[in-house]
C-alpha cells in the first residue's frame, strides 16, 4: 500500500507534544496520598495514545518507552500498584526522554540512545521491584509470567517434521517450558505449541521462522500482556470460514477450530454474531474475498482522484507567524491612512459633507475593530509560559532540599506571541531566584514561625493596557543592609538614605549578586541585570516589593503588544515626538520660581517637594527653532526604572495609538529613540526611549543627588 505515512507526522508530532505536556502537568498535580482516579486515567490515556500513534507511524523508540510506561500506569490506575514519589520522578524523566526523542524525529537535535535505554531500565526496575512476579526481560511484556500460544505450519522444504519440531523445542526451551498442544491431523497442517516463560514474541518468531512458513506463524500471549505482533480479528463462524478461504492470499492461516482458533490467532477476530446481526454484513463477505485482486486494483484506481482529501474535523487552522505579521503590518498602514483621512477632513464643513464625515467615522470604528481582531490573532494565553514552572519548581526544590508549592493565578491572561516568547527566560530567572534566594530551608522557616512549605505565586492579569506578571514568594525578604554593603563593595552608587525601592533595584545592576556562593540554581552567569534589560527591551518594567520575613514580590509590567503603543505626542520646533504613555506621570507649565540650577549642572525643577533633573529635548536632538526658556514651554514628568525626570518640550499635541515601526531596521539605532511611527499627517514621528533619556538626566547629575 503506497500511502506515504510521513504526511501524518506533523499532526502526530503536535499531538504527541500535547500529550506529553498534559501528562507532565497531570503527574505534577497528582496527590500521591489520594490519587484521583480520573487523573490516573488521563495520564494513562496520554501514554497510551502516544504509544498507539507512535506504533502506527513507526516511531519504535517512542513505542518502546511508552510501552513500559503504559504498563506501569495501567497497573497504577487499576489499583494494583500504589504510585510513589520515585515512580512520578521516573515518569517525568521518561516524559523528558520522549520529548527529546520527539525533537530528534522532528529534526531538532540528536536522539540519545543511552537515555532511552536508561529510562527503559529505570522503568523496568520499578516494574520489577513492585511486580508480584520477577520480570527479567526489559523488553515489552516485562511483567508477570507470560504464556505464549504459538501456531505455525512447517516449512515443507523437505525436512523431517519430527526433527524440526524437536530442534525447535530445544531452542525454545531457553525461554521457558515448551509443550506441544496440537499436532497436524488430516486437513489441518498446523502445529501448536505453548511456551510458558518470559520471552519477546519477536524473538520467538525469529526462531520459529527457521522451520516454519513465516506467514503462517501466530504467536499469542495469554494473560494480560499485549502481544507485540497482534494484528486484527473478527469473531464469528461466518468470518472464520472466510478466513480459511482466504488462505491463498497469505493473510490468514486455516486454523479450523471455529471461534477458538480465531482467538488463538489473537490478532483479529469477530465476536459472535448478534442475534439478528448476522445477515447483512457477513453476506457480502465471500464475493469480496474471491474478488480480492480485483478489489485491490479498483482501489488503486479509485485512490487517485481523492489523494488530496484531507481530514477536516479541526476547527482551527495553522498559519505562519510571518503571514499574521504581514496582516498586522497592513492593518497598521490602514490605521495610518484612516488617520490621514481624518486629518484631511478636519477643516471641511461638517454640515456640507455630513455623509463623508459619517462614512469616515464608520471607517474609524471599523479600522479599530479590525485592528483589535488582527492583534488578537497573535495573542496567546500566558499559561504557555506558566506551564513550564511546576516542573522547574519541583525539580529545583528537590535539588535544594526546600519544600515549595507553586501557585499560579490568571493563566488565561493573554499576551502577544512575541512577548510570550521573550518573557519566558526572564520569568524563569525570577522564579529560580525566588526559589534559591527567597524561600528558606524548611528548618529556618519553622524557626521563623512559618510552615515548612514555602509558596511561590505566579500571577498574571491585565491592568490598563498592560499585562502584569507577579512572581511572589513568602520567603525571608530582601536584606537591605546586605544589598547596600554588596553594592558599595561592587562600587555601585549606594547610600543609606536611599529608599527601599531604590535599594531593591540595586539587585538589577550589572555584576550584582548577594548569594554567598554561586549556585547551580540561579548563579548561571546570567545576572538579574540581564533580566531587567530583557524586560526593558520589551517595553516593560520590573518593580520589587519586599518585607523582611514576609516575602518578596517582583512585578513585571509589559505592554499588551509590541506593535501598537499608546503615546503622547509632543512638539519641539517643527518636530513631533511620541512619549509612550506608560512613562508619563504628569505635564505642567513651570513657573519661574520652580526652576533651580546647580552650579555646572543643567537645570532642576522643583515639583511637589522633589527636585527633578530637566532634559531638554532640543538639546538632546539638536532641534533648531524651539523654545529655550523653561517657563515658556511644557515640562512632562516621566519616570523609568523608578527614577523621574522632567522632559522639556514646546507643546503637547495630543494622545494617539501609534503603530510602531522599527527604526533600526529602516535606518539605524539612535540613542534616545526607540522607534518611529507615521502620523495622520503622513509625517514620521520618532518614539522616545524614555529609559535612555532618564539615564541621560541621571548621568548629568552629581552622584550625591
Amino acid at each position, binding site marked *: 500500500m503506497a500511502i506515504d505515512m510521513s504526511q501524518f507526522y506533523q499532526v502526530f508530532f503536535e499531538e504527541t507534544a500535547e500529550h506529553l505536556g498534559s501528562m507532565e502537568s497531570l503527574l505534577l498535580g497528582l496527590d500521591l496520598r489520594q490519587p484521583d482516579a480520573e487523573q490516573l486515567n488521563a495520564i494513562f490515556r496520554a501514554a497510551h495514545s502516544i504509544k498507539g500513534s507512535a506504533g502506527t507511524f513507526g516511531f519504535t523508540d517512542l513505542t518502546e518507552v511508552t510501552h513500559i510506561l503504559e504498563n506501569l500506569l495501567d497497573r497504577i490506575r487499576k489499583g494494583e500498584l500504589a504510585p510513589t514519589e520515585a515512580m512520578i520522578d521516573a515518569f517525568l524523566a521518561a516524559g523528558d526522554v520522549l520529548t527529546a526523542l520527539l525533537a530528534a524525529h522532528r529534526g531538532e537535535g540528536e536522539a540519545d540512545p543511552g537515555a532511552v535505554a536508561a529510562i527503559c531500565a529505570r522503568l523496568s526496575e520499578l516494574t520489577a521491584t513492585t511486580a508480584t512476579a520477577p520480570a527479567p526481560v526489559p523488553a515489552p511484556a516485562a511483567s508477570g509470567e507470560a504464556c505464549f500460544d504459538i501456531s505455525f505450519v512447517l516449512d515443507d522444504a523437505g525436512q523431517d517434521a519430527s526433527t524440526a519440531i524437536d530442534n525447535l523445542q530445544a531452542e525454545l526451551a531457553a525461554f521457558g517450558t515448551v509443550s506441544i498442544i496440537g499436532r497436524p491431523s488430516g486437513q489441518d497442517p498446523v502445529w501448536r505449541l505453548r511456551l510458558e516463560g518470559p520471552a519477546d514474541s519477536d524473538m520467538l518468531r525469529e526462531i520459529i521462522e527457521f522451520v516454519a512458513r513465516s506467514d503462517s506463524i501466530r504467536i499469542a500471549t495469554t494473560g494480560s500482556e499485549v502481544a507485540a505482533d497482534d494484528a486484527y480479528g473478527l469473531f464469528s463462524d461466518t468470518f472464520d470460514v472466510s478466513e480459511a478461504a482466504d488462505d491463498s492470499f497469505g493473510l490468514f492461516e486455516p486454523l479450523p477450530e471455529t471461534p477458538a482458533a480465531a482467538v488463538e490467532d489473537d490478532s483479529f477476530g*469477530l465476536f459472535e454474531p448478534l442475534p439478528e446481526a448476522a445477515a447483512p454484513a457477513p453476506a457480502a463477505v465471500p464475493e469480496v474475498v474471491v474478488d480480492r485482486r480485483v478489489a485491490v486494483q479498483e482501489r488503486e484506481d479509485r485512490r487517485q482522484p481523492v489523494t488530496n482529501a484531507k481530514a477536516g474535523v479541526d476547527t482551527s487552522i495553522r498559519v505562519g507567524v510571518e503571514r499574521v505579521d504581514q496582516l498586522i503590518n497592513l492593518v497598521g498602514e490602514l490605521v495610518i491612512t484612516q488617520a490621514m483621512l481624518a486629518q484631511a477632513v478636519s477643516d471641511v464643513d461638517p454640515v456640507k459633507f455630513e455623509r463623508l464625515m459619517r462614512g469616515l467615522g464608520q471607517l474609524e470604528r471599523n479600522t479599530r475593530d479590525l485592528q483589535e481582531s488582527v492583534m488578537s490573532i497573535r495573542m496567546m494565553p500566558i499559561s504557555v509560559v506558566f506551564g513550564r514552572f511546576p516542573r522547574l519548581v519541583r525539580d529545583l526544590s528537590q535539588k535544594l532540599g526546600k519544600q515549595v508549592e507553586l501557585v499560579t493565578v490568571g493563566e488565561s491572561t493573554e499576551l502577544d506571541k512575541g512577548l510570550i516568547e521573550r518573557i519566558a527566560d526572564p520569568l524563569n530567572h525570577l522564579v529560580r531566584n525566588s526559589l534559591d534566594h527567597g524561600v528558606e530551608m524548611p528548618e529556618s522557616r519553622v524557626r521563623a514561625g512559618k510552615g515548612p512549605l514555602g509558596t511561590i505565586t505566579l500571577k498574571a492579569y491585565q491592568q490598563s493596557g498592560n499585562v502584569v506578571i507577579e512572581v511572589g514568594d513568602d520567603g525571608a525578604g530582601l536584606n537591605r543592609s546586605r544589598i547596600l554593603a554588596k553594592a558599595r563593595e561592587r562600587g555601585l552608587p549606594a547610600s543609606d538614605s536611599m529608599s527601599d525601592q531604590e535599594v531593591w533595584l540595586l539587585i538589577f545592576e550589572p555584576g550584582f549578586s548577594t548569594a554567598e556562593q554561586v549556585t547551580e540554581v540561579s548563579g548561571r552567569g546570567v545576572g538579574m541585570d540581564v533580566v531587567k534589560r530583557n524586560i526593558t527591551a520589551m517595553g516593560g518594567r520590573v518593580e520589587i516589593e519586599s518585607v523582611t520575613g514576609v516575602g518578596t514580590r517582583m512585578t513585571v509590567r509589559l505592554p499588551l503588544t509590541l506593535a501598537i503603543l499608546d503615546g503622547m505626542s509632543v512638539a519641539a520646533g517643527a518636530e513631533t515626538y511620541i512619549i509612550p504613555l506608560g512613562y508619563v506621570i504628569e505635564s505642567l507649565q513651570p513657573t519661574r520660581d520652580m526652576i533651580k540650577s546647580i552650579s555646572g549642572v543643567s537645570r532642576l525643577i522643583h515639583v511637589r517637594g522633589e527636585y527633578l533633573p530637566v532634559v531638554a529635548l532640543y538639546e538632546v536632538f539638536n532641534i533648531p527653532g524651539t523654545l529655550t526658556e523653561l517657563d515658556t514651554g511644557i515640562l512632562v514628568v516621566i519616570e523609568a526604572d523608578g527614577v523621574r525626570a522632567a522632559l522639556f518640550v514646546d507643546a503637547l499635541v495630543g494622545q494617539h495609538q501609534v503603530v510602531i515601526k522599527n527604526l533600526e531596521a529602516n535606518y539605524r539605532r539612535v540613542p534616545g529613540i526607540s522607534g518611529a511611527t507615521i502620523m495622520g499627517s503622513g509625517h514620521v514621528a520618532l518614539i522616545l526611549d524614555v529609559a535612555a533619556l532618564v539615564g541621560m538626566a541621571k548621568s548629568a547629575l552629581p552622584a550625591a543627588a
Partner: protein
Amino acid sequence: MAKLILAVDDSASIRQMVAFTLKGAGYEVLEAVDGQDGLDKAKTRTANLVLTDQNMPRMDGLTLVKSLRALAQYKTVPVLMLTTESSDAMKTQGRAAGATGWLVKPFDPQKLLDVVKKVIG
C-alpha cells in the same frame, strides 16, 4: 453510493491516517474525536461500519458500542474496535458490548483496508 464509515479516535494523527486510507479506497468517512462525539454523529447519519478506539476521553469505545447497539438503526451495523489490547478480557467485554470484531494497533493502512473489505466489502 460510497459506503459510510464512522471513524472514532481521540488521536488526530490516527484519525487522519484512517480517514485518508479509507477515503483513498473510495469510502466516505465521518470522523469523531471521542465516544460522545461518535455517538452524536452516528445519530445524524447511519454508517455502514463503525471503527472506534477504546481509550478515549468523555466516552470510551465499549460504552460507544453499547450505546450504538441501543439505537435501532445501529442494531446490525458492524463495529470494529481499534485497540492496543488484545487480551481475553478485552475480547469478552467487546463481545458483550456487541462489537463485531477488533483490529489491534499498531496496524498499517493495508491491514485496515483488508479488514474493512472483509466486513463490508
